[in-house]
């Protein structure tokens, strides 16, 4: 499952090759690249990854996401310091957010990450996502299951408060059961206190991104 990080990029490039000759309609339903929908969040023990994975860093990706980029850049320009015109929608939608110890409040950078997702969700009403809350290994195992749900619900509530339909966001918790990093260090704990985001519907449209 470690290879899931490279999948969208490969597919995005493939998408460019077929998309260049076509005109992208404004009503394009799904900007996401046609990667497997289950690729990101369901990995039982994924390898450590950086908190922000700029998958769309490839030169061709800017062209690939032009239609989405145009819509979003016109509205907000940049989100969280990223140029939306060069962002891969799937990477933005699945980017994790992180929490403080025993907290479910959203940090400011987490809100910025959610703002970026908001733009894509607004532009693509068919996309539904699932938010999975996780905790570090400290504290009661059972309490952490509940804490993970509070973290998932915090992200959902933020997006719902900004206008995304509640029915488009499912929440689930894995407590401390599925750590990214199994070490017992502050750095590992910080990586594990997170929400993961998975596209469960609407992200596999066959049109070019």
């Amino acid at each position, binding site marked *: 499952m470690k290879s899931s990080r490279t999948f969208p990029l490969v597919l995005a490039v493939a998408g460019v090759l077929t998309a260049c000759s076509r005109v992208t309609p404004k009503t394009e339903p799904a900007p996401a690249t046609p990667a497997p929908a289950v690729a990101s969040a*369901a990995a039982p023990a994924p390898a450590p990854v950086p908190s922000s994975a700029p998958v769309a860093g490839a030169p061709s990706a800017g062209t690939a996401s032009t239609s989405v980029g145009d819509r979003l850049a016109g509205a907000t320009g940049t989100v969280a310091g990223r140029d939306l015109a060069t962002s891969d929608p799937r990477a933005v939608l699945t980017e994790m957010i992180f929490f403080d110890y*025993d907290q479910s409040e959203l940090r400011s950078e987490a809100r910025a990450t959610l703002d970026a997702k908001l733009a894509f969700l607004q532009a693509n009403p068919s996309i539904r996502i699932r938010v999975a809350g996780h905790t570090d290994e*400290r*504290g*009661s*195992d*059972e*309490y952490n*299951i*509940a*804490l993970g*749900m*509070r973290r998932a*619900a*915090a992200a959902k*509530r933020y997006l719902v408060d900004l206008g995304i339909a509640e029915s488009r966001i*499912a*929440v*689930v*918790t*894995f*407590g401390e*059961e599925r750590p990214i990093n199994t070490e017992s260090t502050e750095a590992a704990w910080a990586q594990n206190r997170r929400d993961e985001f998975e596209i469960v519907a609407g992200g596999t449209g066959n049109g070019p991104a």
Partner: protein
Amino acid sequence: MRGMVRRFDAILMMGLGMAIGSALAAQEPGVRIGLTYTPGSQPGIYLVPVRGADGDSVRRIIARDLEFGHRLTVIAPDSGAVVPTGRFNYPLYARLGAAGVVQLVLQADGSALVTLHDVVAAQAQETRRFALPGPRLSPAWRLAVHGIADVIEEWVTGTRGVAATRVLFVRGGALWRIDSDGANEQPVPGVGAALGPAWHPDGRSIAFARMRDDGTSVVVHELASGEERRVRTGAPLSLSPAFSPDGKWLAFAAGESGTDLYVVPVGAWDEPPLRVTVGRGSTNAQPTFAPDGRRIAFTTSRLGRNEIYLTDADGANPELLTSTALTDAPYRADPAWSPDGRFVAFSTQIDGRFQIATISLRDRAVRQYTTEGINEDPSWAPDGRHLVFTSSRTGTRQLWVLDTESGRVRQLTRGAAARMGAWSPRLLSVP
């Protein structure tokens, strides 16, 4: 001690005479004679070697059970020692430090005839025949032998032992079980993934949370049939089930942004659960009933930190339990109400690590039991004296058993990491 025992065996051999049967006939059933038990004392019990192919196994299991019970001092000579066949040399056993002598005779029909002799009164005090269901050394057979140890403990101390019990636990995300003495460690058949197990007081069904990719919910599982029911909640998360001591109610936590406690009548799984707590977005979980079923202790984050609260089972009169003498890091969890009603055991953060403690419901006095490693998730044995808990002291998480009176611990599980121990009720209905 061993050497002394061997020296006296030769003398024992000479103690032939009156048949045991006639000593038993002279005893009125149910009458206590000289062997009295004072709490805190550990009367010596001499375990006579047992004849037969399984004799050593039976005696070894019982001796270990009595040691693990911490109420008796076991005096057990080598298995090669001579089995007395006639009149007991009671003064000899007294000199060995024995207040009682246990004699076990395996019968041709597979049962065991067990007699407790009162050394001071110099006569048999109790005798009973125990069925030992085959095959020998099977889990059912071992459970029956544990039952003998429990009855011996009751004969001497007035309190039934807890050897004939099992502990459920979680290993690799799946549900396992182990006998109270560490034998028969195996996955619970037909369950698979499970977290936070709990026993119904009849020992026949269990409940746990099952975590799946699309949600975590409470499942009630009947051990014999494997039949399962998912508890209906309408919430994306339900967890931490606990049965009331009368077996009529199941409490659990459910919710989304926060969790609240609910109760539902056992068996009435289609009825909407009754809400107990009003957490307003906080986490309220891990319910544990008082022995009378009227009060519930639980974990809550409603104060902005995790503490143990008490509430009436109908939701009235919520109050903070863990408030005093706990000024270090603000995190308490994993409450477990003792079967005698006197204490709530819990995990508390001390110097950044979790430790096992109890709080008295009478005066709120806190006693800390562990210091080594990370120690969590206590669960009481039915005797209200022993606890099983999770400890990292060996480098991996394993289950350990604590005697809350002596503070002594023993390791219960070995091998792959184990956690979330749940001690069963007594599993034999010996009258």
